[in-house]
């Protein structure tokens, strides 16, 4: 019996799978056990063809393959290579010890190795379990370039692997050893598809997005169709601080499991921007399904989740966001398993101010009655709205703004200010589990958002004169803290507070004639 090491994935974390191959005497047979899914099961036919097409002998006997631990469901085609190696070791084609080696890869019928998903979490598991060498398909090269403390080799086909073990194993010619890449240099080359400098006008929205980026605050943009809400949201990812190595690894793990990784970079360098359509199901947002997959909120981990036309999403979808917005992760529980996916994202939402879209606009006349408007706004529940710190109204830009030749500030300049504000917060929260102002709990708000007596008076007068709802209170304090951080001020000054107050329009939105 020969045991070969490979990997399995639950959620976004890997575990070691032992691929045991035994050839018993008796009638020829070929069995695969160990809770394989269909892709794994069909692998045994691929393996047989690949072995024969590479001119090796397929053993005559009762071939039994076991994937241990037997209780965990094995998914995907990554076991083709370890099974093939196990069979060839049993037939003495490979004679060297495979104790320090692990394998993963899908085989084609002629023995070529194909790209697989989940390589990064698998390699991290290998490091954790002190496995020295891993062989992966060539096409997964880039994904392996950021794992240190392990020798990773890529192989083009099954013959390369066999040749390597048949030789002296010092000359690695048949294989290619993966060189570690420099994260910083790659990061510097990261390209975003858009830039804030192309957004004309919209001064207040841009300022609010800057604050949202600096403090990690959730934000909702309210405005008529065509007012540029979507473009603003798309540019939001460009002003977020650059990803740190750890953030990038976390996000890459998730994208690797979902099979969304860009083969060219092999790592996620730009903060993800996910915009699921409003017909999205709860499972596609939260994750889960028969074969657990990360949902949109996890794919947006360390980035932006954009919900365009928020009231159009079905109620269940919106409500499920509440827990991840608090905990920054989501627990998917099914009868068969429980997996946890990280989901720490900034929520950017957009909505029209009323069903027809033109309430408050000067471009077109609104056709909605007050009760219709209230009903529309009511689609977003209070508890969810509670988790959105900034409410910004946008309107279509005027002709003057559009023809203004002066380009606006570019994303890089804004990003610099945002990064500086984040640095202040990192220092402030160095000994806690949180990283930004938006996630402060009640005690921290009390500690870090102290107001002068003048500030207290302003807030009091704002509540009395501006019809603010009580739930706005902590939101305003947190946003004011971020505005102060952007200004580099250790204290929250009155002007920071008044600016924060001005970004709470939804609290005051229902006024209309019912004031």
């Amino acid at each position, binding site marked *: 019996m020969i045991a070969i090491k490979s990997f399995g994935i639950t959620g976004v974390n890997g575990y070691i799978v032992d691929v045991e191959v035994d050839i018993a005497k008796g009638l020829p047979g070929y069995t695969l056990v160990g809770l394989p899914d269909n892709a794994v099961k069909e692998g045994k036919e691929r393996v047989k063809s690949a072995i024969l097409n590479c001119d090796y002998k397929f053993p005559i006997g009762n071939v039994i393959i076991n994937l241990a631990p037997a209780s965990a469901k094995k998914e995907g085609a990554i076991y083709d290579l370890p099974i093939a190696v196990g069979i060839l070791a049993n037939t003495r084609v490979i004679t060297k010890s495979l104790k320090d080696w692990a394998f993963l890869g899908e085989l084609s019928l002629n023995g070529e190795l194909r790209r697989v998903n989940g390589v990064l979490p698998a390699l991290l598991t290998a490091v954790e379990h002190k496995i020295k060498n891993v062989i992966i398909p060539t096409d997964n090269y880039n994904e392996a370039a950021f794992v240190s403390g392990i020798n990773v080799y890529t192989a083009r086909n099954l013959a390369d692997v066999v040749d390597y073990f048949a030789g002296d194993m010092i000359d690695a010619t048949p294989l290619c050893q993966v060189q570690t890449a420099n994260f910083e240099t790659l990061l510097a080359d990261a390209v975003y598809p858009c830039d804030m400098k192309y957004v004309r*006008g*919209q*001064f*207040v929205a*841009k*300022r609010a997005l800057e604050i949202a980026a600096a403090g990690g605050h959730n934000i909702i943009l309210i*405005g*008529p169709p065509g007012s540029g809400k979507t473009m603003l949201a798309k540019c939001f990812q460009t002003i977020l601080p650059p990803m740190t190595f750890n953030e990038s690894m976390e996000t890459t793990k998730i994208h690797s499991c979902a099979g969304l990784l860009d083969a060219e970079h092999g790592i996620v360098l730009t903060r993800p921007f996910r915009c699921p359509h409003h017909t999205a199901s709860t499972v596609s947002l939260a994750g889960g399904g028969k074969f657990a997959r990360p949902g949109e909120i996890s794919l947006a981990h360390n980035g932006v989740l954009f919900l365009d036309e928020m009231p159009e999403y079905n109620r269940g979808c919106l409500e499920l966001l509440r827990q991840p917005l608090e905990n920054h992760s989501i627990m998917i529980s099914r009868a068969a398993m429980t997996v946890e996916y990280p989901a720490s994202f900034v929520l950017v939402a957009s909505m029209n*101010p009323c069903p027809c879209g033109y*309430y*408050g*606009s*000067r471009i077109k*006349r609104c*056709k909605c*009655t*007050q*009760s219709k408007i*209230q009903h529309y706004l009511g689609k977003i529940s209070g508890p969810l709205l509670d988790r959105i710190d900034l409410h*910004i*109204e*946008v*309107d279509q*830009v*005027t002709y*003057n*703004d559009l023809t203004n030749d002066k380009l606006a500030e570019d994303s890089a300049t804004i990003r610099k200010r945002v990064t500086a504000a984040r640095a202040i917060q990192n220092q402030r929260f160095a000994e806690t589990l949180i990283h930004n102002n938006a996630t402060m709990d009640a005690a921290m708000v009390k500690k870090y958002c102290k107001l002068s007596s003048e500030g207290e008076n*302003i807030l009091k*007068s*704002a509540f009395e*004169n*501006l019809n603010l709802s009580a739930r706005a209170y902590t939101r305003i304090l947190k946003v004011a803290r971020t*505005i102060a951080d952007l*200004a580099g001020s250790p204290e929250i000054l009155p*002007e920071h507070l*008044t*600016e924060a*107050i*001005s*970004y709470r*329009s939804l609290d*005051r*939105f229902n006024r*209309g*004639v*019912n*004031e």
Partner: protein
Amino acid sequence: MNEIQTIRLGDSNYPKSLLDLKDPPKQLYVKGNLNLLNHPMVSIVGTRDCTRYGLMVAKDLATHCAEAGFVVVSGLAEGIDTAAHQGAGEKTIAVLGNGINVYYPIINKELQNKIANTGLLISEYPPDFHGDKSTFPQRNRIVAALGRAVIAVEADLHSGTLITIRKAQTLQRVVYAVPGNINCYASQGTNDLIANHGAKMITNAADLIKNLTGHKSSSQLQPVKQITMDQQKILNILKTDEIHFDDLVMESGLSVPQLSTLLTNMEMIGLIEKLPGNYFIAK
């Protein structure tokens, strides 16, 4: 809570002004402060599909009329009617096209209750009667007849408000109309009233009160508030029109944080008002 009472045609407290009608209501169901019927009344009417300008003017005129001793009559519909009732405070009469126990429109439930307590509800229909297509235009004749003057705040060219106005003119009531932007649908009807149908134009609340009472408005000028240079600059820009935040940035030359702070402060001391869509207007 006040009880519903009935007033029959011929009773001593039956409003005299309704006798001008060809078909005065045989009986009125009323709820609230009956004393209001003894005061001089002004009717304020307008479209449900109104603009912010209309709401502001309706409310403002109603407040001034109430201060000058008039009771403001309107129809409790959405839009201008609602603003007029709100502006008049307690001195207001709502004439319903349905029974007094029926809340319509439902969004005005609170307002209807408030008027039943401190103002007066009037209906010619039994308390539990649900209005229909014909009863709302019918109540307009009561609105038209009750006021010694009728003010049209906003109406487009096909608005039901114009029915009330025509009725008022046949009853020899003085008709006033609020002029508006000639490109705005909601002012086309009222502008037309001024231009072609003999309505008097309202230029400001004080003139209206002078016209109605024969003497100057007693309401005091608001005390002058201390304002800063920057605030004055904003007020100068807002003098002509409601302006969007972005345009204020361009015109004032202030940065976005500065302007946000300034505007919020000005709003809190009541110099300006923030409108939906991030527009600002001087108060």
